[in-house]
């Protein structure tokens, strides 16, 4: 049986390989499992943007785009299987939307000379392009998020957080543990007390954690959650009457999925974001015309304009712009993954560019370089309005505390470099 299935698999991989002349942007999506609520929205946004480019512009630089999808269910083993099965299709850049899968892919993709883009997730110290030559995490990372959350709280408190208590409720995984070190440094710098409250996967049961918060009465709660954990946490916070405006989630804890089920009680809940929210952009008119009304939308087509859908659009836009940059640098339209990497490394996002794309003020301005693969760390705060049922930006894009973060990035990436004998990639 083994051999028969194997032959079948190989034949299928060959049959499924797209025509090599196209630009391929594989989508490692998860439309099933405990994290599907966010995964579906992201995958739809990612696919719809590329469909729009195909329908409206005929692809990128005259090259049609393909978006082969592979279901990972947020599971690392399936993620590896997906990566291997899509590798032969010539995918230009992978965006797995999972920190666990990212950790698997970092060494593999560097060896295979394919770039990996993990906007707002993955390994934070990949910002150091000197060590992580093929990994990009612009425009913002987990540590930027933690830092901006604290900066925002500093603003709220007139620049002083001394003696305040901050609790971090986090998904007990590589993802959730990321901000701990940054927050510890920041708590030393600004003099607030930090307590860490882990929640185990998938986070459907959080009674004891919120009992602890109720007992300790922190002034603020920061949450690094994903999937069903967010809804439960927000409901539990309402149950212990924790003031919603003092509750800040990271960008993975700030979508409609997380707050809608809690109803009126979630009003005032805040979340960070590294891109704009809502569908009030010229781009969405084109999306409606060329994709949604034409019946070419990915999935059910009902997610347009939700926060994580926008993130999928944004991720696809960054990939497309990088591909354009790569085409300009190398003077060919049919780029290879290696050339795509150069394009990402020279990507420059400006307001003019975003206005031209029909996405004014959609994300922060940033410039990628060989040393800095992570952008400038600009993050904004959004707030949920339960009556209008919409998120809105309540701050501009704020720059994170680069002094603290850069030191941590250098330390962590150097440790990785010495562990794996990596020579600096930049001259």
């Amino acid at each position, binding site marked *: 049986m083994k051999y028969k*299935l194997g032959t079948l698999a190989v034949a299928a991989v060959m049959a499924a390989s797209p025509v090599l002349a196209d630009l391929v942007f594989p989508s490692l999506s998860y439309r099933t499992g405990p994290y599907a609520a966010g995964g579906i929205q992201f995958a739809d946004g990612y696919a719809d943007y590329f469909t729009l480019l195909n329908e409206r512009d005929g692809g990128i630089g005259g090259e049609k785009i393909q978006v082969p999808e592979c279901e990972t269910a947020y599971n690392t083993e399936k993620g590896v299987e997906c990566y291997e099965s899509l590798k032969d299709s010539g995918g230009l850049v992978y965006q797995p939307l999972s920190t*666990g899968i990212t950790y698997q892919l970092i060494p593999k993709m560097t*060896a295979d000379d394919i770039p990996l883009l993990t906007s707002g997730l993955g390994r934070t110290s990949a910002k150091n392009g000197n060590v992580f030559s093929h990994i990009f995490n612009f425009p913002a990372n987990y540590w930027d998020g933690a830092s901006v959350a604290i900066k925002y709280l500093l603003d709220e408190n007139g620049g002083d957080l001394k003696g305040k208590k901050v609790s971090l409720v986090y998904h007990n995984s590589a993802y959730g543990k990321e901000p701990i070190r940054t927050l510890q440094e920041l708590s030393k710098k600004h003099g607030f007390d930090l307590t860490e409250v882990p929640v185990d996967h998938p986070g459907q049961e959080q009674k004891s954690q919120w009992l602890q918060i109720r007992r300790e009465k922190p002034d603020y709660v920061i949450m690094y959650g994903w999937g069903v954990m967010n809804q439960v946490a927000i409901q539990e916070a309402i149950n212990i009457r924790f003031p919603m405006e003092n509750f800040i989630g990271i960008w993975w804890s700030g979508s409609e999925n997380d707050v809608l089920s809690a109803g009126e009680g979630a009003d005032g809940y805040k979340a960070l974001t590294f891109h704009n929210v809502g569908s009030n952009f010229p781009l969405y008119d084109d999306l409606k015309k060329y994709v949604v009304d034409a019946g070419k939308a990915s999935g059910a087509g009902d997610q347009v304009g939700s926060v994580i859908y926008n993130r999928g659009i944004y991720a696809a836009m960054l990939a497309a712009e990088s591909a354009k940059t790569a085409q300009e640098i190398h003077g060919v339209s049919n780029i290879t993954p290696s050339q795509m990497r150069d394009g990402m490394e020279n990507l420059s996002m400006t307001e003019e560019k975003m206005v031209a794309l029909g996405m004014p003020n959609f994300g922060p301005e940033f410039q990628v370089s060989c040393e800095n693969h992570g952008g400038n760390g600009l993050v904004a705060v959004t707030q949920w309005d339960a009556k209008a049922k919409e998120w809105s930006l309540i701050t501009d894009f704020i720059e994170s505390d680069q002094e603290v973060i850069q030191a941590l990035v250098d330390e962590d990436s150097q440790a990785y470099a010495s562990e794996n004998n990596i020579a600096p990639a930049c001259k």
Partner: protein
Amino acid sequence: MFYREAGDFNTTYAEDQQTFPIKFDRYRYYLVMFIAIVVVPFVINDYWVNSLLLPFLIYSIAALGLNILVGYCGQVSLGTGGFMAVGAYSCYKFMTGVDIWWGGELLFRLPEFNIFFSVIMGGVMTAIVGALFGLPSLRIKGFYLAVATLAAQFFLVWLFNRVAWFYNYSASGQISAPERGFLGVLITGPSTAPWAAYLFCLFFTIICAYAARNMTRGAAGRKWMAIRDMDIAAEIIGVNPLRAKLTAFAVSSFFIGISGALFFAVYLGAVEVGEAFGITKSFLVLFMVIIGGLGSIFGSFAGAAFLVLLPVALKVVGVDFLGWPTDIVAHLQLVIVGALIILFLIVEPHGIAQLWRLAKEKLRLWPFPH
């Protein structure tokens, strides 16, 4: 025509007692080994190794280990995921040099072990931990023992999540395998050649299967089976239950530790304990053993192949051939695998191994069944 003894004469006791006494069966076995060792390494690529062969080999080792405990000794265990984690984390600590701290100071650091010995140490440490968690089996049986091993599962995962020493204080709590080689050939890390990773795992699989087969038909295995079939009777005829149960736990955990170490170091390269070694892993391996066939070496392989290859095959057929949406295929996959498990348990409660046995019986009579 097939599987006949006719014309196959044994003249020594050794020949009479070999694993495959029938010539046809023996040659089939040689052929499979020949293809696996000599032919396959030349024809495989990354996709084959990382998506099909490595998980199949590694889960086979885990299933062999659990089969010794559940199938041969009759001690139900739900701690497989936790024990695999012990193997993975020990392997990681030994391959990066075990550091011993006392009172906040580094006492000494062991030199880094070669990857081969790190994997072995993963097995050894797991055997010790497994024997420890096997101690309650002397007092409790059946479902109650399953609950005790379930506690081991949760405790071990919690421990590796909680104590930063196990993951060398990395920021994310992940362990990732640095590049290591054996006899000058890279085994771990991203630049590993597919054949090297495959042969490394195949070597452990063959050794484990060989050891398991010979242990289970020797004195140790007979004691385990006596305990499984009726422990009081076994005790009366002179089997020491303490030694029998603890050796079963230790040997089983050794295998599971090896598979955990390979799972982390060679297959995935980086793991996070809660995600990779959670309770679902325990159930997955238990299903492999049950579907494959309790108390059967072949069954362990068949069960691993069934649960590793079937989802991939369904995905390939659904997404790549038929072009269905990925989420529908993923849901169908759950439905079909689940339905097949139920079907198997109804139609053949003794698993694929029993089907294989029946097929062999039929083949012996073919083409003139009486």
